[in-house]
Structures are given as structure tokens and as C-alpha cells.
């Protein structure tokens, strides 16, 4: 894991001192709310329905146990004993006082954490594959490049006042676990025929009011030229992105307006003129890479007797192993997914106690490594198969062993109208109702992979456009209604979902999802996921089932 050196630490200290002064000036009336808002947003501080919310960056979703314990402590000290992991792999606290915020960011800085640029029209926290360094699928470790981007984008003098927010994802595997094509820039690490490392550069993805899937503007960018190329993209965007209409200000609108080829040509021209000044020297890349050298893995047999015995003995463990373990690149190890989607719980929420349990497990069994996924779950990327039964038992004790990864109850939901000032409708309770309908784990497994994603407003923090089943909350006369979409995907086969029909009232949504699932089970052919069946049949059978049968 990357360790902050004195430069990184000085930087955080300077930033927290600046923020403390800004808060003091606001409280003293020297800054108006209009002036203060963009400043607090660039430090992750929102004013929500009930209190301030602090969004803390988890750069490329990577945490160590000390950091997670500090988050738990902050949750207990300044919030109500819990936090909410987001679809941007950040952590939000929902009950923060403005007057406490400077102290909180000081505490964060003590463990090399911050809330810098987790909001505002600037470059946001970069996302990377949560299995980085653990999966055999990857071409290179995406964290190396994500860390380079983190530094480059932090308080970038030219790109801190963009037309709109800007999100970058880095993935290095054919299977995309970052939703790269829904980002403003998606970077996919590749090797050329001669073995050179580079990126496929995708630009102009984004959800929100007008969803777009990112388009490739360069098939292969030499990896060492990454930052100068990003600078060229950002400069074209900063100059030409729309500033007259907030709803048309994302880069996706510029790319769509110019067309992919023209946009790419402008970027290439800018890149050529601008030279390599932004690119990191090999020494710095090597320094960053050194922070991510693989841990010393033991030489273990690929089959663990302890693991196999537990699987035979305990059906609940067998189910967990089936759904929540993923293959590790080293024999005798596994990637362990920790679901933050217990049936009836708030998706993405973790109590301070749960955070501490995960921190302890990472320390005892997981090489001090914890990841946050954009699907609002946690991952222990390096666990010996021999230790998985003990990890499972401890997770189960803490309510963290729900065996539902990628199943219908593993639902993405934004905080919605329960917390968010922008929301039109609740998302959490809709997720809870759906999960409760699929509480029977046998049925959930029978249904198989099914990504349900719920947003409480058109801003789409819950990624509803790219859910296999997407649910969007809308407001009608102050009351909550929900529009359903089908067939979206955030993965390598990214697609925007198709509307099912008119909005449904709050109390009919879970029933409608149940009907959609039953329709799928009736229609599916062997081996088809929900998404595959939908792609084959189209919307018709689903539409008919929902609008004819729901009463």
C-alpha cells in the first residue's frame, strides 16, 4: 500500500489548515454561503437534509486497518456510530457538524486520509479494480497508475474549477469491476503486441440526467505518457465544456456534441503541442510501484484441507464460499468479499463495530489490506484458504457474512431522500423491501447474478441506468414514485437500461421486481443471467407481466 512521505503529509497539513480558516471565516460571516459552498464541497462537506455530510476519500478504494479503525472512531465520536460506503468507493458520515469538520479532517490527516475533492467541479477520487494485486486477470497493478493520478489531480492549479465534476477509473482486467465506461475517463491497461504497457482511453461516459457509455478515443496510449494525455483531455474539456447549463456541462455532452473523432483529434493536437511536462519520470513511477509490490505470499497447496472440511461440515459456510470467494492469483489464497447488504439493512452502511471487525481481520488474516468496491461492499483481497473459515465465523458474528455477492439482494442504493438534499424519493427502504422479498438464499441463488441499482434522483449516484434492473425515484406532488429500467450494465458489456413503463408507487416496487424475476425464471434458457434473457427477449414479456399483474 502507498505510504505518505513527508511531502504528502505536509500537503494534507496545509490543506487542513486552509479548510479550518475557511470554516472560521464562514462562521464569522466573512464568507457568504455562495462563496463558501464550493470551498466546503472541495473538502467533501455537503449540507444535507438533517445535518452536514462529510464524504471522505478512499483513494482507489484502498484502506489499511489503522485507517479503517480511525473511520470507526470518527463515526463513534462525531456521528451516530456508523458510516456509509458509496458507489465512488468513498465513505460518508451523515450527521456531521460544521464546527467539528476541521477537527475531523485533522484526525483523518493523522492516518494519511482526507476529503479533498470528493465533491465540487474538479477531479474526484479515482476508482480502481478492488481486486488489484490479487487477481490473476490483471495486466498490471492499476493502483500504481491510480496513485499517480491521485497526486497529479490533487489541487491541480488548472483543473480545480471545471465545468462540472470529473471522475476517472483505472482497470487492468478484461472483467471490469470499476464501471469504467460510466466514468468521464475510463482507463483500461493493456499490453501491445511487443509487450509494452499502455492504456485504452475511454472518454465521455457518465450517468445522471443524460446517461452515456464511454467511447474509446485511443486504443493504446503508452503508459508513461498517461498524465500528459490526461492533461490534454482536461484542457480541451476545461476550455470547451459547456458552462451555460449545469445539466449539459459534463464532458459526455462535449464528446457527444463534437463526435468521438473530432474530440479525439482535438485531444491529440493539444497533447502533441503540450509535450511531456506532466509525465512522471521513471524514478517516480518506480517509487510508486514499490509501494504496491506483492506481499510475500506463502507457498501453499491449491487445496486447503481446513477449508474443504469446513465446507462439507457447514452448509452456511459452503454457501458463503460459493458466493463471496473469488479466485486469487496465488495458490492457497482467496479474495473474500464482505457484503454490506445484509437482508433488511441499509446498503453500504457499516457500524463502527463492524469496521473494527474488518480492520482486525485484515490485520490477522488479510495482509493489512482492505478494499471498498463501487458496489458498496468491502473486500479482503489476500486471505489464506486455511483462514477463510475463521474469517467467515468472525464476519458472521458481526453480521457481515451475508452470502449474496452479485445476487438480487446485493443492491446498490444511494442515501436517497432519507438523507440527501438532492433526492426526490427514498432509495434505502426500497432496497430493503426488495432484499426482504429475496431473503431466502436458495431462491436468490436460483435467480443468480442480478444487479439491482436504485437512485433517489436523476443524478444517479445509485447507478440505476446501468442496473440489470434500475430503479429511479421521482417526485409527484411531493410523493415518491419509481421508474424502472431493464438491461443496463456497468461492466465491460456496459449498456444503459431501457424504460419498462410508467412510474410505480412506492409500495409496488418490490412486488414489481419480484414479478420481473419470476418472468425471467419463466423465460430463461440454460445458462442465461437475467441480463442475457432480457437482451434476448426484449422488454415485452417483462412489461406485460408487471403492468398486467401488479395490483
Amino acid at each position: 500500500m502507498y505510504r505518505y512521505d513527508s511531502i504528502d503529509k505536509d500537503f494534507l497539513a496545509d490543506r487542513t489548515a486552509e479548510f479550518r480558516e475557511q470554516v472560521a471565516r464562514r462562521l464569522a460571516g466573512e464568507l457568504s454561503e455562495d462563496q463558501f459552498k464550493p470551498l466546503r464541497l472541495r473538502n467533501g462537506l455537503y449540507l444535507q437534509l438533517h445535518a452536514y455530510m462529510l464524504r471522505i476519500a478512499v483513494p482507489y478504494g484502498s484502506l489499511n486497518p489503522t485507517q479503517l479503525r480511525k473511520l470507526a472512531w470518527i463515526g463513534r465520536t462525531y456521528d451516530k456510530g456508523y458510516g456509509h460506503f458509496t458507489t465512488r468507493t468513498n465513505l460518508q458520515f451523515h450527521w456531521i457538524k460544521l464546527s467539528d469538520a476541521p477537527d475531523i479532517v485533522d484526525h483523518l490527516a493523522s492516518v494519511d486520509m482526507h476529503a479533498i475533492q470528493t465533491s465540487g467541479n474538479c477531479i474526484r477520487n479515482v476508482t480502481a479494480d478492488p481486486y488489484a494485486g490479487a487477481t490473476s486477470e490483471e495486466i498490471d497493478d492499476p493502483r500504481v497508475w491510480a496513485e499517480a493520478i491521485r497526486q497529479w489531480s490533487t489541487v491541480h492549479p488548472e483543473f480545480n474549477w471545471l465545468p462540472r465534476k470529473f471522475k476517472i477509473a483505472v482497470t487492468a482486467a478484461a472483467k471490469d469491476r470499476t464501471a469504467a465506461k460510466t466514468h468521464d475517463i475510463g482507463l483500461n491497461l493493456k499490453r501491445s503486441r511487443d509487450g509494452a504497457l499502455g492504456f485504452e482511453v475511454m472518454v465521455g461516459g457518465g450517468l445522471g440526467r443524460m446517461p452515456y457509455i464511454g467511447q474509446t478515443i485511443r486504443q493504446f496510449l503508452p503508459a508513461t505518457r498517461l498524465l500528459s494525455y490526461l492533461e490534454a483531455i482536461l484542457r480541451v474539456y476545461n476550455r470547451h465544456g459547456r458552462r451555460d447549463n449545469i445539466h449539459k456541462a459534463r464532458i459526455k455532452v462535449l464528446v457527444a456534441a463534437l463526435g468521438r473523432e473530432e474530440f479525439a483529434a482535438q485531444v491529440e493536437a493539444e497533447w502533441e503541442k503540450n509535450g511531456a511536462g506532466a509525465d512522471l519520470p521513471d524514478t517516480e513511477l518506480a517509487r510508486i510501484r514499490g509501494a504496491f509490490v506483492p506481499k510475500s505470499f506463502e507457498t501453499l497447496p491449491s487445496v486447503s484441507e481446513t477449508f474443504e472440511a469446513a465446507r462439507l461440515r457447514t452448509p452456511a459456510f459452503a454457501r458463503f464460499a460459493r458466493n463471496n470467494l473469488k479466485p486469487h492469483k496465488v495458490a492457497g489464497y482467496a479474495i473474500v468479499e464482505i457484503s454490506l447488504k445484509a437482508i433488511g439493512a441499509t446498503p453500504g452502511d457499516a457500524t463502527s463495530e463492524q469496521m473494527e471487525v474488518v480492520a482486525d481481520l485484515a490485520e490477522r488474516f488479510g495482509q493489512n489490506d482492505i478494499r471498498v468496491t463501487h458496489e458498496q461492499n468491502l473486500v479482503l483481497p489476500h486471505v489464506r484458504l486455511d483462514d477463510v473459515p475463521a474469517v467467515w465465523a468472525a464476519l458472521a458474528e458481526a453480521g457481515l457474512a451475508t452470502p449474496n455477492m452479485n445476487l438480487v439482494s446485493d443492491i446498490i442504493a444511494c442515501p436517497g431522500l432519507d438523507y440527501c438534499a438532492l433526492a426526490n424519493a427514498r432509495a434505502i427502504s426500497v432496497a430493503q423491501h426488495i432484499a426482504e422479498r429475496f431473503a431466502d438464499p436458495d431462491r436468490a441463488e436460483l435467480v443468480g447474478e442480478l444487479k439491482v441499482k436504485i437512485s433517489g434522483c436523476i443524478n444517479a449516484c445509485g447507478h440505476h441506468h446501468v442496473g440489470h434492473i434500475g430503479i429511479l425515484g421521482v417526485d409527484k406532488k411531493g410523493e415518491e414514485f419509481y421508474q424502472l429500467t431493464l438491461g443496463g450494465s456497468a461492466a465491460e458489456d456496459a449498456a444503459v437500461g431501457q424504460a419498462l413503463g410508467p412510474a410505480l408507487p412506492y409500495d409496488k416496487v418490490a412486488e414489481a421486481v419480484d414479478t420481473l424475476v419470476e418472468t425471467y425464471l419463466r423465460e430463461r434458457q440454460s445458462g442465461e443471467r437475467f441480463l442475457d434473457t432480457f437482451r434476448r427477449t426484449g422488454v415485452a414479456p417483462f412489461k406485460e407481466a408487471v403492468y398486467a399483474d401488479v395490483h
Partner: protein
Amino acid sequence: MPMFIRLEAGVFSLAEDPFTAVGDEQSVPPGDVIISLTRFQAEGEALMGEGRAVGVRLESHEEVEALAYDLPQLAVVALAFPKFGDGRAYSYARLLRERFGFRGEVRAVGDVLREQAGYMARCGFTAFEPADGSTLEDWRRASQRFRHAYQRSSDARSPAFVERGE
């Protein structure tokens, strides 16, 4: 004369402004002036021919490339911030310094707040007209807030990746 903040060789100072900012509908007074791009394109050559210093005010929707040919004759390029959240001028300032090699004054005008001081200085601005009542000391402190920088920009600062190698 109105005052503005100047940055020269890394030092901030208060200075009397020798330039008059002239709107398109005003007649041009004697002395050094800053005029719009439109007016410059029509009258610039004549005004410069009178032996006075001429600066151009570029609005954020105007292309900095439009000045490329005339830059060697210009004393000032004033980059406008219609709102402090409109960040186009940061790109223009870098282009003026890094691409066009402009050595004259690059001035920040419009909705210019203390919070932008550091960004502006890094992008090559050398003159500032704060709209928020910031004093010289406020401005200097704000712009020197960060002891390190992560990126190369138009200023002479060594980015972190260079500092680390030293």
C-alpha cells in the same frame, strides 16, 4: 490611482495601476489602457502607434489564440473571471506562458477571490484585482498556502516528483 497586487520574482506587492480599464462604449482616455479583444482588433494598432502601453481583456469565452500574433506588443493580458467558478482562464494563462511564451503581465480581473490566489499564481498570473477586499497579506498567505505542489505548471516550482528525486 487604483491599486492592484503584483507578483514579481516570487514577491507580492501592492502597486498603483498605471492602466485604465476602458469599456467598449467609453472613449479611450490618454495613457495606458486595457481594452476588449473586439476593440483591440479594430483599434489596437492605432492605439499602440500612439506610443502608449496597451493591454487586452479576454473574456472567458474568447479564445486565447486570437492574441497569438499580437502578444509581443501587448503589455497586459487581463483574463476575466465572470464567476469565480469559471476556470477557463487558468488554461488561458498557462497557454500564454507555456505555449506562446508571453512575458508581459497576466492579470486576473472580475470575480477574483482569495481562494483562487494559489491556483492563479501557479498558472502564470502576475497581477490580481481582488474583488473580495483581500489585503496584500491575505493574498500572499493564500497563494503560498501549500509548501509543495504535485504537478508542473507555469510557475518555477519543483513538483513533488522532482523534489523527491533531489
